[in-house]
């Protein structure tokens, strides 16, 4: 009953899938490669990718933990930041307040999961529903518009032709990959997910490690909320539906096991890339929307299945 061990470049499978899809799309429709389209794709990858990084932390922390709240949190924090800005609060202060708030929500999840032993599924499902509800309560459903230009730049401007959200994703990826692989925290996180009791007996503060994981996920959901609000020029209570599922799927496509203990930030980004690419390519390839969901579902299943078979063959 041996577990498959990371030999070589583990994210090879999903990366191949991404590249094949991209090349395929580019051949069928060369406009795929226009700067404009790549920027658009990049912004989408940033949105799913950031959420997927958060999920990766939570999932690695083990105990079957997942975070179902990101999608709704994106809506709520987007609405909140827009509300703050409308009250005339300074842009950066608003952003900071929102990040602090979402960090707090993450800590709240972590507290319930570790101290009260409430399943992560339930507490984050609760937030999913509650946050979605509050977004509607705050706005009565109407978007909050008229946000300052400085703020909109977060979602819409480019730097060196690369959209700001992509820069944010790059920086976040580097930092979190570093944390996961090189720091004490990363080791403790993987230990907690791999064998909670062993980690506890060794003196790892498993609870704190898990709480931090949820805080990372919360924080990134808030960050995405800000980016999306800036991208849409408004606080929209209706955005983000199902984003949590896409984020979790990205993570799993990238090779993270839902059982906890192991996972890859890079893989999660590639997973987010595949899903975003599908959204983009299906339009470029002129597939009727009614079929979009069918194709996305099939590609996710096929990509994951082939990757698993590939790994199994490789380990023989």
């Amino acid at each position, binding site marked *: 009953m041996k577990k498959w061990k990371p030999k070589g470049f583990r994210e090879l499978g999903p990366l191949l899938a991404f590249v094949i899809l991209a090349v395929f799309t580019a051949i069928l429709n060369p406009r795929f490669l226009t700067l404009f389209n790549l920027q658009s794709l990049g912004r989408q990858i940033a949105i799913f990718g950031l959420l997927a990084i958060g999920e990766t932390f939570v999932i690695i922390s083990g105990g079957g933990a997942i975070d179902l709240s990101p999608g709704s949190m994106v809506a709520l924090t987007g609405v909140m930041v827009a509300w703050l800005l409308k009250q005339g609060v300074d842009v950066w202060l608003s952003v900071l307040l929102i990040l602090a708030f979402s960090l707090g929500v993450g800590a709240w999840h972590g507290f319930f999961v570790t101290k009260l032993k409430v399943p992560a599924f339930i507490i984050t499902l609760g937030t999913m529903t509650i946050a979605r509800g509050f977004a509607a309560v705050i706005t009565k459903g109407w978007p909050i518009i008229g946000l300052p230009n400085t703020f909109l730049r977060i979602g819409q401007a480019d730097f060196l032709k690369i959209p700001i959200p992509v820069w944010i994703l790059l920086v976040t990826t580097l930092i979190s990959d570093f944390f996961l692989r090189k720091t004490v925290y990363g080791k403790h996180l993987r230990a907690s997910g791999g064998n909670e009791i062993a980690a506890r007996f060794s003196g790892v503060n498993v609870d704190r490690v898990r709480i931090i994981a949820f805080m990372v996920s919360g924080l990134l959901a808030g960050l995405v909320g800000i980016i999306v609000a800036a991208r*849409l020029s408004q606080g929209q209570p209706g955005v983000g539906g*199902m984003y949590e599922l896409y984020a979790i799927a990205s993570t799993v496509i990238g090779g993270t096991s839902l059982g906890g203990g192991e996972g890859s930030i890079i893989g999660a980004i590639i997973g987010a890339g595949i899903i975003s690419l599908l959204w983009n390519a299906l*339009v*470029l390839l002129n597939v009727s*929307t009614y079929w979009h*969901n069918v194709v996305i579902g099939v590609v996710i299943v096929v990509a994951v299945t082939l990757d698993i078979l590939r790994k199994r063959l490789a380990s023989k």
Partner: protein
Amino acid sequence: GKSVHPYWSQVEEGVKAAGKALGVNTRFFVPQKEDVNAQIQMLEAFIAQKVDGIAIAPSDPTAVIPYVKKALQQGIPVITLDTDSPNSGRYVYIGTDNYAAGYRAGTIMKEILGGKGKVVIGTGSLTAMNSLQRIQGFKDAIAGTNIQIVDILNDEEDGSRAVALAESALNAHPDLAAFFGVYAYNGPSQALVVKNAKKVEKVKIVCFDTTPDILGYVKEGVIQATMGQRPYMMGYLSVTVLYLMKKIGVQNTLALLPKVTVDGKEDYIIDTGVDVVTPQNLNDYLKEMERLGIPIRF
């Protein structure tokens, strides 16, 4: 379009029919659920493709502004249908705005109820612009009467939950006078509940869209009135206008279109009108649609 819904599939039929008649290549997209971000993502993909023209029903009028501007900058003509985005620089708006249609529904409700009674609204979204505008229009129309909106029910675009909520509402308000259904499945859900509860005489229904089940209930007299927005026309005209813009130029096309003045600004709006279908005029409506060449499934 905004989400998978018969309304949009009627728009699509119009788009296709026009495309065929004019010999142009048309593409029609709706996301599964209303999601502004997803719509913008699609819009960008179209701009990237350098299509000849875009007709969009903005999920949100302000959110799309920067992206419509981008398309215009790249020389792609953009028009709006169903929902307008007046500040985006789009050339033309084709449709009846949802606020107006909602207002019409409110006016009719006022007539049916004789200006008083309790109403429950059923909708599929608390955040989608079309729902918000229809409800707002409805509210504004009944303002100042003794009609009271006792509850708004959000079923999150789940037809089954719509039925459950309508049942609860009917039970919670024994003196309920009417339902107002915002999305296409809301009316039939309410009609089903009212019919099964044998309260057809007591509880009136005004709703949106002209799907076959709605028309069936209209015929039976369970639904008193439904608002048809002629989605087929919107689709057909959008393609036609975009075709002209490509063929004879944007300015020449605009010159052919009715010009209106809004807040002192000149604008181009093609009002597709609202059909109010009632048990009384159902046959006339069907004949009229046939005359216009709009297919009716019934």
